[in-house]
């Protein structure tokens, strides 16, 4: 697997608008941003990207298994945000709305992609950021090697639960399925991972 530059170095080079994942939980800020975009202002879209890009890109990447498709999904998502215009003001929870739209766009992207099978996602070592800690990096590397072998639906649930730290109810709401279904997919995914881990150890 190709070595991946640690994300901290990438940020230090000068990538504008470093993602502020801590702002994800600030519900009032989301409402404010959506309100401003609904009013026709485009400047808050930059803040929206900074706050949400990592999580949305990660969800798209884990769902599609392709960096190119994930990038297309994020671009399409922002186009949808701009096209919604004043309707954004009626969105009750912008975070779940963004995740839900990302989920649907990722599904559409996979369907459109004809060459997905030719690029197994194990070759994409960037399913997750390269942790700084070496031991953690080893664990992460083993983890995504296993996760890559799950189905797209199971990968998605694992990402939303473990990386995005969402509950099963929130995951179900984001994916448009009952919470029980989300929980069931998660249990099956863990079971599959344990099976794969047991065979590898």
């Amino acid at each position: 697997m190709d070595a991946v530059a640690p994300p901290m170095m990438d940020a230090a080079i000068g990538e504008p608008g470093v993602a502020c994942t801590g702002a994800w939980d600030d519900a009032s800020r989301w409402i404010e941003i959506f309100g401003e975009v609904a009013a026709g202002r485009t400047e808050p879209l930059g803040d929206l990207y900074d706050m949400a890009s990592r999580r949305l890109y990660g969800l798209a990447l884990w769902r599609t298994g392709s960096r190119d498709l994930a990038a297309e999904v994020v671009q399409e998502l922002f186009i949808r945000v701009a096209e919604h215009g004043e309707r954004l003001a009626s969105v009750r929870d912008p975070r779940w709305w963004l995740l839900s739209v990302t989920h649907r766009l990722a599904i559409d992207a996979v369907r459109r992609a004809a060459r997905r099978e030719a690029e197994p996602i194990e070759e994409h070592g960037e399913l997750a950021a390269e942790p700084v800690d070496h031991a953690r990096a080893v664990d992460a590397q083993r983890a995504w090697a296993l996760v890559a072998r799950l189905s797209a639906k199971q990968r998605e649930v694992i990402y939303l639960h473990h990386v995005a730290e969402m509950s099963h109810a929130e995951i179900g709401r984001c994916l448009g399925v009952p919470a029980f279904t989300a929980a069931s997919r998660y249990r099956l995914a863990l079971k599959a991972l344990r099976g794969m881990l047991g065979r590898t150890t």
Partner: protein
Amino acid sequence: MNVERDPVTRLLAAIEEPEPPRGLRELALAGAAAAGARKAAVDAWRRLWESRPLRLAWAVAVALLVAANFTIRTGSRARPPAVPAAAAAQERAGLKELQAIVELPRIRLHSAGIDAPEWRTTGPHAPEPKTPHHDQEDKS
């Protein structure tokens, strides 16, 4: 479940959110700006439609059309039809003719008809009233 004991959750806990690729921010924001510009052009018609004076003018026009349609329909029903009047006049004329045929003229004003009380009393031997046809037949 203890994260440390479960190897799977321990491994999963090591995963962090991936970093979006360089340049994606500019691409995403540029696409959003282009979409917003397209939406503004399309929405010009919608803005016209959402204009209150225009909506009011449209509603008034529709109301006038409906009223005009209603007026034309009811006005045509109130006028009496020409053909039925002519037919009625012709019928009345025909009835008069028929009445004239039915009402046979009496040759002798003083002669009573068969429904006269005098005929009933005298019986059928009462002299038959002479008609112009009978006179002619005698001559031939």
